[in-house]
């Protein structure tokens, strides 16, 4: 209630002054009144009904009083207070029912609002003094002094400016109490279901937001990062230490100690036990592995190849056209190089003598890295029919010509070229020639001329069929006596030719028996034109003056005439030198490649004779005979040196002997092939071959022992197929036959082992082609104790043969007698018989019988010369 007390204070003062005059005995702000009953009814203050003693107060409206006064003028009870009421500040006047008549009237009117307030709200009676002290203790709130704050509050306070509208809704009265059914209804269903008061922007005014509350919070942003140091400078750190060692005194102390004794005692039995175990058996031997053969054990999961696989084929059409290959050799030291000798085919040589000039005979060197081009060509004016690498120096090659001459080459200048063409080398053309010969492999192959040729007087009269170096362990004098070889290198060559002789040649400078010869030789030196650079001077001393040391002729044993040798084989003597000083010296020499040009032949007297050299040779002849002869020259009755008669001769083969090969494992086992059979001989067993194969359909044309298996050898046939024989498996037929290795007759087979895993077989044929086949593992890995088994086999065969031959002798004697009788009676038959028999005998092991038969018939005089055995 707005305090208008200030104003009222004045007005109340005024009203008080006016009220003073009327009555006394009552305070000034009270006016006692008498109210008639009608007035009481009008104002609703009937005594003892509306107002009672308990509630004597009644507030009357000022306007009502004024209206009453106006209406009833002087009659109204309120006339005496008319002025006061008019000047009453407030709207309501308090009328008090005075029941006790304290102021002598029934009612009294309170004139001032303060009094009204006082009466209505009488102040608290004064509390007794006991409580006063307590009350005074609690702090009494001070009177609020207005300092203007209520105005602010009034300003801020929200007041209703507009009177609230009041709406009253009620249902129709008759529906009161009726049952009601409520249901839901969507406001959108009915059109006027709802009334929307949308807010809209009133254009009359706009409120500008002057102040906006906003809050800010700082949030730290997280970012993770890492750092790693780089180990930029790696540094090796090492320490060197020295092993600790105990001094001798300390060692002594320890050795004396009890603990060591105990240790030794306890440990020794164990150790001895283990040592003994070790001795007794090999604990770690793999029985499973040993059980299987070598091939299975090493390469189990892979397919076991049985066949000879074609590895490479060499042809060079430029040089090999219309030529056949006579012999091939693997290069002894350089892996993967084959040398091949080409000769014109038989018919051609006679016809085309002119073309023979333009096409010189060659030995081609093939290398695995370049199959279609030969690496090196060795040239010779005459066709080469046989050649061999020198075992001590693979750069020296000796060759035998079809005219009977012996030729030497030295390829030391071109070795790098041949070597450079290794299979492992890259395909980049290599200009390695030291002589500066520009060499594009594809265009030009180096050609080496022969550096020495034998003199035309001293050479063979017929084509040379075989040439071999003597092993470096011994050499031969002019009489054929084997003497020690001081140089320990191969210096001598043996050749045989169709002129029924063997010749021994020496490569060194010959001791001159004839002074005239020496003069001639020396004068020849300045005279001879300087040879072109490509020909080395190694054998200059031999060129055109070379003569053989001596000759060995092969007279027939029983008849006149000579054997015509085709191939021969001599035993490689292994020197058992007791003289160690010499041996060491020579070893040193061997390491340096011997310079053949400086070698001088020593006098026979100074050299020691070697007694245990086997000077006998096995020779295969054109007629299929195997001749066993000694090359030493003997003095006959007249003191002339003549070669002895051959010791034995066996006619085993129907046609000429192609090869005589000694087994690389046994020095007395020889394999010979000729015609359609082959024979294995043991040296010392002179009754016949150990094994003679049965006739095959195709001719055997070449043979070769395997280098790693003592029981295996390869035979090539006329139709170009190869037979593999294994003596331990089957002796009557080959273990393997592989057809169509080449298209024509196989002329030569050679085995070579380039590495422990690779064994190769080189096969040459009639048409100038060389095939290299890879020998499968089964054929080159030897079986367990194979050599022992083979040895046993041969021994058995020997014994068998002796038994058989004894029987045959008996039979033979009987037959002789029978024949002798028959010949007198039937003169025709023996001829026929002899023919039949001579053919039949080849199938059996009666080596001697044909000759015996011959002998007999000749004696009787009924001998008819047959086509097989020539009689010159």
């Amino acid at each position, binding site marked *: 209630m707005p305090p208008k007390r200030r104003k009222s204070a004045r007005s109340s003062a005024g009203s008080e002054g006016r009220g003073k005059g009327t009555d006394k005995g009552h305070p000034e702000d009270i006016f006692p009144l008498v109210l008639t009953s009608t007035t009481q009814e009008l104002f609703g203050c009937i005594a003892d009904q509306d107002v009672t003693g308990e509630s004597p107060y009644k507030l009357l409206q000022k306007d009502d009083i004024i209206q009453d006064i106006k209406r009833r003028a002087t009659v109204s009870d309120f006339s005496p207070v008319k002025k006061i009421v008019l000047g009453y500040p407030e709207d309501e006047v308090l009328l008090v029912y005075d029941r006790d008549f304290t102021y002598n009237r029934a009612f009294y009117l309170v004139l001032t609002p303060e009094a009204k307030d006082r009466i209505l709200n009488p102040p608290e009676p004064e509390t007794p003094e006991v409580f006063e002290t307590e009350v005074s203790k609690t702090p009494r709130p001070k009177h609020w002094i207005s300092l203007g704050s209520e105005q602010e509050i009034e300003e801020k306070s929200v007041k209703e400016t507009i009177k609230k509208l009041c709406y009253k809704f009620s249902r129709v009265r008759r529906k009161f109490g009726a049952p009601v059914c409520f249901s839901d209804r969507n406001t959108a269903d009915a059109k006027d279901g709802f009334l929307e008061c949308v807010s809209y922007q009133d254009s009359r005014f706009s409120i500008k937001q002057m102040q906006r509350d906003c809050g800010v919070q700082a949030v730290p942003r997280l970012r993770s990062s890492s750092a790693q140091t780089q180990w930029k400078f790696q540094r090796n750190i090492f320490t060197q230490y020295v*092993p*600790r*060692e*105990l001094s001798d005194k300390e*060692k002594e102390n*320890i*050795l*004396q100690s009890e*603990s*060591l*004794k*105990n*240790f*030794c*005692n*306890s*440990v*020794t039995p*164990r*150790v*001895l036990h*283990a*040592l*003994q175990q*070790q*001795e007794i058996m*090999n*604990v*770690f031997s793999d029985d499973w592995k040993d059980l299987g053969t070598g091939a299975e054990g090493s390469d189990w999961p892979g397919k076991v190849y049985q066949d000879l696989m074609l590895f490479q084929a060499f042809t060079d059409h430029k040089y090999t056209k219309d030529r056949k290959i006579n012999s091939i050799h693997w290069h002894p030291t350089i892996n993967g190089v084959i040398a091949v000798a080409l000769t014109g085919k038989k018919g051609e040589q006679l016809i085309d003598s002119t073309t023979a000039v333009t096409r010189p005979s060659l030995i081609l060197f093939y290398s695995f890295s370049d199959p279609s081009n030969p690496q090196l060509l060795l040239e010779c004016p005459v066709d080469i029919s046989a050649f061999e690498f020198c075992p001590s120096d693979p750069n020296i090659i000796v060759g035998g010509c079809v005219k009977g001459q012996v030729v030497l080459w030295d390829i030391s200048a071109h070795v790098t070229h041949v070597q450079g063409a290794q299979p492992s080398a890259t395909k980049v053309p290599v200009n390695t020639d030291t002589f500066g010969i520009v060499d594009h492999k594809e265009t030009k192959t180096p050609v080496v001329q022969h550096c020495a040729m034998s003199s035309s007087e001293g050479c063979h009269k017929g084509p040379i069929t075989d040439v071999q170096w003597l092993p470096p362990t011994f050499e031969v004098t002019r009489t054929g006596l084997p003497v020690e070889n001081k140089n320990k290198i191969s210096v001598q060559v043996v050749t045989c030719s169709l002129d029924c002789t063997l010749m021994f040649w020496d490569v060194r400078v010959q001791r001159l028996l004839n002074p005239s010869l020496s003069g001639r030789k020396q004068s020849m030196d300045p005279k001879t034109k300087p040879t072109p650079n490509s020909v080395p001077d190694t054998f200059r001393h031999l060129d055109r003056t070379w003569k053989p040391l001596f000759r060995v002729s092969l007279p027939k044993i029983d008849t006149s005439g000579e054997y015509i040798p085709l191939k021969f084989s001599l035993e490689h003597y292994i020197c058992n030198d007791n003289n160690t000083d010499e041996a060491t010296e020579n070893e040193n020499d061997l390491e340096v490649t011997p310079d053949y040009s400086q070698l001088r032949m020593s006098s026979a007297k100074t050299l020691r004779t070697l007694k245990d050299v086997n000077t006998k040779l096995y020779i295969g002849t054109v007629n299929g005979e195997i001749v066993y002869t000694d090359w030493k020259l003997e003095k006959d009755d007249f003191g002339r040196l003549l070669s002895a008669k051959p010791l034995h001769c066996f006619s085993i083969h129907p046609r000429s002997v192609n090869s005589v090969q000694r087994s690389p494992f046994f020095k007395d086992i020889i394999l010979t092939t000729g015609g359609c059979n082959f024979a294995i001989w043991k040296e010392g067993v002179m009754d016949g071959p150990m094994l003679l194969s049965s006739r095959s359909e195709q001719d055997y044309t070449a043979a070769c022992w395997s280098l790693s298996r003592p029981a295996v050898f390869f035979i090539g046939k006329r139709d170009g197929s190869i037979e593999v024989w294994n003596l331990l498996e089957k002796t009557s037929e080959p273990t393997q036959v592989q057809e169509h290795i080449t298209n024509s007759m196989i002329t030569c087979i050679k085995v070579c082992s380039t590495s422990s895993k690779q064994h190769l077989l080189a096969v040459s044929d009639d048409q100038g082609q060389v095939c290299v086949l890879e020998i499968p593992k089964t054929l080159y890995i030897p079986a367990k104790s194979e050599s022992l088994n083979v040895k046993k086999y041969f021994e058995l065969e020997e014994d068998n043969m002796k038994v058989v031959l004894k029987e045959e002798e008996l039979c033979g004697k009987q037959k002789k007698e029978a024949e002798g009788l028959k010949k007198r009676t039937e003169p025709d038959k023996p001829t026929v018989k002899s023919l039949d028999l001579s053919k039949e005998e080849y199938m059996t092991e009666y080596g001697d019988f044909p000759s015996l038969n011959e002998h007999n018939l000749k004696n009787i005089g009924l001998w008819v010369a047959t086509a097989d055995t020539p009689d010159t």
Partner: protein
Amino acid sequence: MAEVDDTLKRIEAHKGVIGTIVVNADGIPIRTTLDNSTAVQYAGLLRNLTMMARSTVRDIDPQNDLTFLRIRSKKHEVLVAPENDFLLIVIQNPCE
């Protein structure tokens, strides 16, 4: 001392024995028939190996212990006998 010598000589005289070494707990050879550098090398290396072998055996079964160690190589066989902190090493050539 003499006993020790005798026993060791017996072992050394056995067929195929190349050399023997007696090693102490620190891997230092005490007595050997080989030359010093070889002995030191063998001792050091085999000491470690024996310790490792021993710990392997004992890890698998703590009640167990290593009694003998045999190393067979292409060229020879090495026998090692550990006992009481000492080690006896014997090098033997195989019989075949």
